[in-house]
């Protein structure tokens, strides 16, 4: 017993403080009138902040954008991830090196990836894509003006595709060689194998990739901050960026906190499923 006090308690106590402190504070701030610029705005607000936020078109836009970001990025990374990891499973020449090459973007910090895409690739005049389009006689695209949200989706997907690949590769390693050989004996081609055996085997891994990305991408921030700063208009403002803008640009602490609480609620809905899956996995140890 004495041992336990010295071992896992410190971790649990600091995490408890880290989780509960800010959470309670955020809830509190979301219920009061609080503006850093104007000290005369004060007092209990009740659900006023929430009401104000929920009826604000910027908020509804940001929710819509958040969902679009999540859905597209997850869709792209999972589908491409499955195809690429299946390909990597095929005993290619230099396969191990290729794997390193393919997972590399994951280790590029978000601000760097945002800037190299914005300036070196997607720039409407000097960007490499503009050059490529020109080769085919196509007019240049002003990516961040014409399809701002799409551009951010491309950047984040590039960053996170390696994550999906990595997880799927790990999961497919647990598939025994014998299963593969047995299915070959049964006459399964690539297509049949992919759909009948590979996908079902990776079911859990796909679920994990989807849920983890849901939680992480709720916080997409750096890419927006360094490329579009939420614009044009509200076209690339997601929930995270909205909270940042309300808090650190408009200094409306109450409203920003209400936005924060909404993101916590959303993350928790996803987290329940994810945690249940993790707990189940622990039982099967």
């Amino acid at each position: 017993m004495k041992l336990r006090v010295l071992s896992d308690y410190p971790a649990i106590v600091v995490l408890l403080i880290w989780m509960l402190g800010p959470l309670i504070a955020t809830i509190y701030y979301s219920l009061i009138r609080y503006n850093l610029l104007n000290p005369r705005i004060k007092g209990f607000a009740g659900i006023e902040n929430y009401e104000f936020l929920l009826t604000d078109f910027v908020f509804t836009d940001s929710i819509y954008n958040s969902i679009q970001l999540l859905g597209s990025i997850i869709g792209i990374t999972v589908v491409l991830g499955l195809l690429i990891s299946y390909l990597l499973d095929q005993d290619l020449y230099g396969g191990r090196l290729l794997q390193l090459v393919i997972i590399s973007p994951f280790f590029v910090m978000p601000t760097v990836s945002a800037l190299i895409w914005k300036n070196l690739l997607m720039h409407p005049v000097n960007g490499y894509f503009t050059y490529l389009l020109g080769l085919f006689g196509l007019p240049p695209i002003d990516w961040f003006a014409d399809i701002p949200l799409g551009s951010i989706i491309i950047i984040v997907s590039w960053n996170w595709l390696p994550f999906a690949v990595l997880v799927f590769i790990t999961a497919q390693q647990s598939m025994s060689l014998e299963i593969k050989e047995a299915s070959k004996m049964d006459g399964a081609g690539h297509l049949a194998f992919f759909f009948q055996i590979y996908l079902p085997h990776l079911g859990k891994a796909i679920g994990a990739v989807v849920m983890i990305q849901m939680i992480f991408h709720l916080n997409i921030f750096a890419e927006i901050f360094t490329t579009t700063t939420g614009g044009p208009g509200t076209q690339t403002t997601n929930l995270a960026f909205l909270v940042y803008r309300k808090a650190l640009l408009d200094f409306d602490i109450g409203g920003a906190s209400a936005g924060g609480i909404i993101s916590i609620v959303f993350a928790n809905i996803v987290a329940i499923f994810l945690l249940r899956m993790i707990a189940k996995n622990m039982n099967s140890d």
Partner: protein
Amino acid sequence: MKSNRVLLSILGWVIGFIIFFPILWMVMASLKTEIDAVATPPSFFFTPTLENYFVVQNRSNYLNYAWNSIVISVFATLLAILIAVPASYSFAFRPTKRTKFKLVWILSTKMMPPVGVLIPMYLFYKNMGLLDTHLGLILIYTLMNLPIVIWVLYTYFKDIPQEILEAAQMECDGLLKIFLYILLPLSKSAIFSTSLLSIVLIWNESFWSLNLTAFEAAPLTAFISSYSSPEGLFWAKLSAASTLAILPIMFLGWVTQKQMVKGLTLGAVK
């Protein structure tokens, strides 16, 4: 069969090239002159120069930001490891009925979106004078990575056969000796690679670093974003700075890819 393998390999490498291209292009741009960097059509063949790398340091004090990144990621990692080792040890070797619940709860703290708690943290840091300080970021990153570090260490510890610890129990008098002579040497490499994982994650974190630092304690993530403002539009120099910021960590990332999966999927994938 053989020609099949060749075809698939070519396909794989073409895809690999496309995925890697942005990084390659960036590294190439960093070796160009500013004029070559914006040339249309883009130039694949040019006389490489290291000039940008020197300019980056002189103009923006690059080393200062790099030093911040190093200090913050290393100290936050050390702190997290210090707290996590005893906790993981007790979860792995002295499990109780509540161990599973505790582990899952610890993971659940990782699922709190930073944006949800940005406001109180910002205000708290402002009041405590922790904004734009090393300590401020170190504390946040320690807490942010603690669940992952505990989890990864726990899975490593669980792989140590129980019988080895029992053998040690038969021979060593006291927990401290078991820890020093058996457990620590056995888990050296696990602790090391978990630390690398933690450093990679902190190095690239850019929500808190952008929101809580300005200049003094700003790590590389924040430094790079300063190039997004128009006055910083020097592509070759931006590329040089970016290359410096990501290459060392990309190497660590390659080394720690296994721990990365373990840590980021929080045990949902084995």
